[in-house]
Each structure stands twice: as structure tokens, then as C-alpha cells.
């Protein structure tokens, strides 16, 4: 099946007083309809930058090299007006802080109706009915929520409202950027149930960006592990999680409480001062001389000389 999203040799760097900061390096990923791809990794590894590159939301001065192809068209070369058509209606995004993702001084009803009108999906009356229908489907009191302000709703309710705003536009690709961050266990379960409906119709793809390995394991078909802006391991979720190859993936899984809570020694290097060779070699107990000088290629889903 033709992929919805393809990123080829994507590199993203930000301007800095001394040179540029490489946030993402030579990233290649693809996503098929009905598939969920999880990008996992620790904070600051460049996961969210990938999401924002796809949405073309990075600040001016950011250098994006490579190709991001959505439904066959290179979105890096689209005008801002063309991107406005794609954002929301084609590619939707769920944010990590649902309460902050809603306008605090606008009624929720208006926030759900407006995007539908902007994309010309229906009339105002129909937009209201559709919004109420989706809210009811998510287990909310639609009439109350439509007349409420975001600060009147709990975090879990806001997460459902944000999800409703995205799903009302029926996008072909949904990007969920750390959607479970700050939510309690019950709300995480609810959110997982909502996100699993995204790919249920086999039409929409889900790009899940998270550092929660449990959520990634439950939702995704494939998983890509990022470290310092590079993909170090990629493959079927069940395979990667059951038999991780890269030392970083093994360390990441080993640091989970259920796996013994063993931290990876050392700290991630600053993006302004990345080591030569494999970026993980200063923290890797298997590293040899070659790891210190040459950057390994991604072969058979793993970027490591020792695997």
C-alpha cells in the first residue's frame, strides 16, 4: 500500500551564535495508512522536531534538508497557503498539554466549530451538530462542554476535546506529540482507546511521539528509537521491544521500573557538542575504536557496529 508519509534523509538544524545545532540527522521513515509508527527516545532527542517538521511549524531560520513526502507531494516545497489546507484537514496534531492547547478565553463549542468552517466541511449548524455528536461519542456532556471554557474542564476532558477537534476534520495522518504526558493512569487508558480508533479504519496513519515505552508498545505497529537526533533502531514494535539490538534501546528498556530500573550510565551529549563517530559511544560499554571515529549506517533496522 502506498505510504501516507515518507521522510527521506531528513536533517533539521537550528541557528545558534556559533554555527548550527543539528536537532535531527539523516532521518528516513515511512508510514502506511492504518499503521501506527512510534518515535521514542529521551527528552531532547529530536522527536518533536520531526513532528513540527512535518507540520512545517519550525521557527524561521531553521534549516530543513531532505524530503518529507505526504501522499506523494513534497510538503517542504509547498507555500504557506497550501500548508494551511493540509494542516488540520489532511494532517492533524494532538498536543501534550491538552488544557494549554485550547484557547482559554474562547468557548469550546466555537473552538470545535471554527476549524470545520475554515476547511469548508459543512454549514455552521451542521458543524455544531457534528461537534456535539463527536463529544457525545467520547462520553462527554456535549451541551455543557460546548458552552464551557477550557479552564472549566479537567485534563482528561480537555484531552478528549482536543482529540475531538482533530478527528472532526477527518485527517489522513494524525501526529500525537507526547499525548500522555501529565495524564493519570485512567486518562492514559482513555487516550489510548481514542488513539487506537484513529488507525481502526485502515485509512488514517498515526505518528506517535512519546517517551512512554508502554504506550508505544500498546499502540504502535512499528517503532523508531531516536538518540541525539538520529534513529538508532527501527522495526516491528514487538520485535524491537522483545529483542532490542542497539545498546541504547537495551538501556532504555532496562531503565524501565518493570525491567529493573537500571539507568544508562552518563548523560546525553549536548547537541552543540556531539561526539565524533557513533553518538552513543561515550555511554556504550561495547564501543570500540571504530565506534569512536565512524558514524554507523542504519543496517537491518539498527545503527551499530557491535550489533
Amino acid at each position, binding site marked *: 500500500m502506498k505510504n501516507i508519509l515518507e521522510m527521506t534523509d531528513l536533517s533539521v538544524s537550528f541557528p545558534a551564535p556559533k554555527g548550527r545545532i543539528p536537532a535531527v540527522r539523516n532521518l528516513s521513515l515511512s508510514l502506511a495508512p492504518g499503521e501506527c509508527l512510534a518515535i521514542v527516545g529521551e527528552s531532547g532527542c529530536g522527536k518533536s522536531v520531526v513532528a513540527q517538521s512535518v*507540520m512545517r*511549524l519550525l521557527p*524561521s531560520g531553521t534549516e530543513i534538508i531532505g524530503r518529507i513526502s505526504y501522499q506523494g507531494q513534497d510538503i517542504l516545497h509547498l507555500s*504557506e*497557503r497550501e500548508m*494551511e*489546507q*493540509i*494542516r*488540520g*484537514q489532511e*494532517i*492533524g*496534531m494532538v*498536543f501534550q*498539554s491538552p488544557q*494549554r*492547547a*485550547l*484557547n*482559554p*478565553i*474562547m468557548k469550546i463549542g466555537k473552538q470545535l466549530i*471554527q*476549524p470545520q468552517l*475554515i*476547511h469548508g466541511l459543512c454549514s455552521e449548524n451542521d458543524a455544531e451538530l457534528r461537534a456535539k455528536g463527536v463529544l457525545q461519542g467520547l462520553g462527554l456532556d456535549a451541551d455543557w462542554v460546548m458552552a464551557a471554557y477550557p479552564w472549566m474542564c479537567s485534563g482528561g476532558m480537555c484531552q478528549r476535546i*482536543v482529540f475531538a*477537534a*482533530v478527528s472532526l*476534520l477527518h485527517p489522513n495522518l494524525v501526529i500525537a506529540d507526547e499525548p500522555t504526558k501529565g495524564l493519570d493512569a485512567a486518562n492514559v487508558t482513555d487516550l489510548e482507546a481514542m488513539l487506537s480508533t484513529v488507525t481502526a479504519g485502515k485509512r488514517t496513519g498515526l505518528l506517535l511521539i512519546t517517551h512512554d515505552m508502554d504506550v508505544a508498545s500498546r499502540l504502535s505497529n512499528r517503532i523508531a528509537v531516536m538518540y541525539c537526533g538520529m534513529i538508532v533502531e527501527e522495526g516491528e514494535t514487538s520485535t524491537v521491544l522483545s529483542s532490542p539490538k542497539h545498546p541504547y534501546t537495551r538501556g532504555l528498556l532496562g531503565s524501565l521500573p518493570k525491567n529493573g530500573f537500571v539507568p544508562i550510565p552518563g548523560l546525553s551529549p549536548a547537541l552543540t557538542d556531539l561526539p565524533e563517530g557513533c553518538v552513543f559511544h561515550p555511554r556504550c560499554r561495547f564501543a570500540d575504536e571504530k565506534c569512536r571515529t565512524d558514524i554507523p549506517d542504519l543496517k537491518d533496522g539498527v545503527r551499530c557496529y557491535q550489533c
Partner: protein
Amino acid sequence: MKFDRRYILPGLLILVLLIVAVFPGVFAPYSITDRDATYQAPSAEHILGTDNMGKDIFSLLIYGARWTLMIGFASGLLAVCVGTAFGLLAGWRKGILDEFLMGTTDIVLILPKIPLVIILAAYLGPSPWVLILVLGLLSWESIARVVRSKVIQIRSAEYILAARCLGFSDVRIMVREILPVVFPVIVPKFVLVTAAAMISEASLAFLGLSDPLMVSWGGMISNAFTYSGFLRGMWYWWLPPALCIILGVLAITSLAFIHERGVREVVQL
């Protein structure tokens, strides 16, 4: 939200002035073209006497509210429109446009206002519209600065990013998402500029730089000064318009200060 009682007195005062300004014919006993004997003292017929032309001073006072308030509010509105547009664009776009717009703002900021207004009013001719244009276009810079800093603060908020992800255009985000948040900052600025414009109008009229056919409170004081109202001790000629200006400006600035204090109290809570 609980209504703040401190708004009542200045609000009522502004309301009365506005009603008088909109419907002067209802309250004025005479038209501004009606004449009687000149330099009359207050009487039952003419509550505040008559001026050098024999016009009823009380009627002039009522008709004067129209232009004084009109010039004040129109200048304030113009300044708010220009300042908000500059601030929104500069804060949202940033980069070269921001530098250009803020550079322009800085230039307007350092211009000596009153001398420039005097020169422009003298050069362009005495018309109330010129006055509105000049006062409005020289008072927007602080609004632009405040709006810009507020926009910079808001533009990185997650709900703005979320709005962009839903396909909202830049213009829509600026007008529908950012402007309502910036609005409470603009309101006190608007009333302060309005008050300042009323004072400037009075000053220019006193200096004889306003339209002589236009009846305004500043013009009445100027006439009293020019046509020996002060020498004759006709306090009822110049004192009422002066009091009206003071009360009008005080009421408007009070509204701004009460609003600002209210916002500060909410923030402190």
C-alpha cells in the same frame, strides 16, 4: 464576574457627556447661530450669560462637547487601530518586518509631539479632521510597543500552535486568537490617548490653531481669552468649559486606572 462599583461614577459622567454630545439640540436652549445682546451676565434667560457675539454660553458649552469628545475618541480610535496593527504584525511576523515597524515606532516615539502638532495644524489648516488625523497618528507608538510585547508572549503559547495545526491562517490567528487576549491591554491605552487628545485639542484651540467655526471647549476658553472675557471677570465664560475638560479627562483616565487596577488585582490573585 462581579461588577466593580468604582466604574459607576466616571462611567456615568462619560455617559452624560456622550449623550449631551450626540443630542445637543435636546439640551441646549438656543442654537449656536442664535444671537442676543453681547457680554450678558448669567440670568434666567441665559444661564451662563452671552459671549462677545451675543451667543448663549450654556448652549455653546453643550455644542462644544460634540467636537471635544469627537476629536478625543476619534484620535484615540485611530491611534489604537494603527498601534494595534503595527504591534500585531511586528510581534507575529518578527524578523525584518518587526525591525522596520519598531524602527518606525521609535521614530514616532522621539518626535516632539506638541510642537509638531502645532506646525502640522498650522500648515494643514484648521480643520477638526486634520486635528484628529494629526493627534491620532502621533499617539499610537506606545500602543504598538505594548501590543507587540504581548503578542510575542502569546505567539509561542501552545493553543496558538494548535490553531496553526488546525489550518488557521496567520490573519485569522492574529484577529481571532491573539487580539481578544491583547484587548484588555488596549482598552486603558485607548482611554489614555483619548484623554490626551482632548487636552491637546483644548491647547491647540487656545493657541488659535483650531477651526474658528468649530465650537469646542478649548475654543470657548480661547475666545474668552481673546475677547476680554478674563479682563471683564466673566468666569462663567471660561470656567465651565475648563471644568468640563477637567471632568471629562478625569473620568476617562479614572476608567483606565480602575480597569488597570482590576486587571492587576486579578493577576495578584
